[in-house]
């Protein structure tokens, strides 16, 4: 059984709605929102051990919005989100984590950030070695450590 089965249909709709509010699509940056089909499918299938906390967070959002979050008006949803975030509950972090960790591994999003859509290994990356003469002033100032008295036992 996948973690997906822990979400009801209403919870899935509410989570998707919330993901789109958190990170909406942008024409300016040519990126989808976190409620995009592929990204949201990744979010739901990746909930893992966070599923229980996500459900708790959605229940809190429902309480703040006066019903099923996805069924509220846009204005009510934004008010509920603001109240939810102002509570500074760890549940806010959970919703941000499950959304962001999938959103920023989508090819379209990575490319918009000028990232190659690939894992770091095995190709790695280039980093310039740098100009070590920058250390000359540090050398010129001399030692900064303290001598310590000889060990004579405690």
């Amino acid at each position, binding site marked *: 059984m996948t973690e997906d089965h822990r979400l009801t249909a209403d919870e899935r709709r509410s989570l998707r709605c919330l993901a789109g*509010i*958190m*990170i*909406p699509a*942008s024409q*300016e*940056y040519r*990126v989808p929102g976190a409620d995009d089909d592929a990204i949201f499918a990744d979010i739901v299938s*990746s909930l*893992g*051990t966070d599923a229980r906390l996500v459900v708790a967070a959605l229940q809190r959002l429902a309480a703040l919005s006066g019903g099923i979050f996805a069924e509220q008006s846009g204005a009510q949803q934004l008010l509920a*989100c603001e109240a939810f*975030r102002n509570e500074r509950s760890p549940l806010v*972090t959970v919703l*941000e*984590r499950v959304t*962001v*960790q*999938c959103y*920023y*591994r989508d090819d379209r*999003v*990575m490319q918009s*950030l*000028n*990232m190659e*859509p*690939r*894992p*770091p*290994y*095995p*190709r*790695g*990356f*280039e*980093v*310039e*070695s*740098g*100009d*070590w003469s*920058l*250390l000359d*002033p*540090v*050398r010129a*100032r*001399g*030692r*900064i*450590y*303290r*001598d*310590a*008295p*000889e*060990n004579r*036992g*405690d």
Partner: protein
Amino acid sequence: MTIPVDVLIIGAGASGAAIGWSLADTRMRIACLEQGDWIKPSDYPSTGRDWEARQLGDFNINPNRRGNAADYPINEAGSPIKIANFNGVGGGTILYAGHFPRMHPSDFRVRALDGVADDWPIDYATLEPYYAQNDRMMGIAGLAGDPAYPPKAAVMPPLPLGKTGATLGRAMNTLGWHWWPSDSAMATEEYEGRARCINLGHCTGGCAQGAKASTDITYWPQAIRARVELRTRCRVREITTNSEGMASGAIYYDADGAEQFQAAEIVILACNGIGTPRILLNSASPHHPDGLANSSGLVGKNLMFHPYAAIRGAFDEPLDGYRGPHICTWSQQFYETDLSRGFLRGYTYQFSRGHGPVTTALWGMGLGRIPWGADHHRALRRGFDRSAGMLAICEDLPEEHNTVTLDPTLRDANGIPAPKIDYTLSENSRRMLDHAVARGSEILRAAGAREVAFESPMQGAGWHLMGTARMGRDRSRSVVNEWGRCHDVKNLFIVDGSVFVTSGGVNPTATIQALALYVADNIKQRLANLFD
């Protein structure tokens, strides 16, 4: 039924690996019990597209969040700083950043120099040859000539400075403050079968390239070739003692959960500053009602972390971002005591490059710098690939009320009582953290940062676990003697961070391993009368 061994090491991390390797040349029969398993390089997060996500999950630094089969739960509700560790062959070196500073001569003499805490019964000169030996075994990159240290050799060239190191270095020069390439446990060239670093930028999720010096690829292969037996997925419950008060072995649960007994002539604990006191306290018996080796009452007391502050700046120009080892350079400008600063002792800055987009987003959202909604994209791009900063590693002074005890109800998967942490941040630490944030902000502004943000203390930064079985000559004020042997049990040794008398203001792995090699040499030199 297991075959009795001469030496039983508990824990296959930084120190267990080092002492196992060193003792192998005695040709004694040596076995090591490790509760975790070998980690395959192909399993490390940087091999997949979910490399950042997995660091929030199965490669998380916090064992309670990670919850792998090898992990044991820790009640950390009583501490503002949460525990970071890893259980497996290599221990904490699997997930450490590889920042590898030594302690300083003054760190061993804090009472004599600064009138605080206690002096160590050994000094820098005692450990210096072991630091050097360990640098060669681990393969440390660095640059000789650092004016913050007595002379020491570099094994390999330093990590690349990159745009980040150069930007911050120029700022430090403007301010007239010390900085230097960090000693780093990274192979910057091929070294002893390890491939060179290719700047994966994901050292703290485990190095798929094998460039980072975790002990599963440094000490252990050599120790195993020298016939040290490493038994994985074996969790020790307690150390047993005989009628003469000597350790007789350990009871453990094997990979199938079956209870086993391993008899040994010498037992060595290498389980870190929480795991070691946990086993000693779980080894209470009618002869040792307060726990084994605890006649001083100090087992589990004086827990020290290094309180951390993270200070980061956002710049207009692109820097290294997520490319390259996160560590880069360090500063010890504020390391030695200066009473005008309002606190005793000091700290190291560990300068660092940027993060991947997930970490950038979560950090920014957590601080309120990256909003929800349409402006999310613009705010993220203002920080992504354009951030740099530092961690301040503050010396934590020993206080007996900071403790590791046994939780009355929490148990691990084998039913063994779990540790409970109670820790309070001292006023000295708070002042030091405030100073570090103020000076760090000054550095970042001098480097051109348009925005500076910080987290202090870093809640998740309980990486360094020290002081809970301290070293000393006075058996009423310490748990082990000046060469790591328990005062109360003359064939029981401790070689992990538990034995630290004070913490210094540096990452402790180099010192932990140097101590393990030093204790090993003492055992070898005293074999004829080791138990006298």
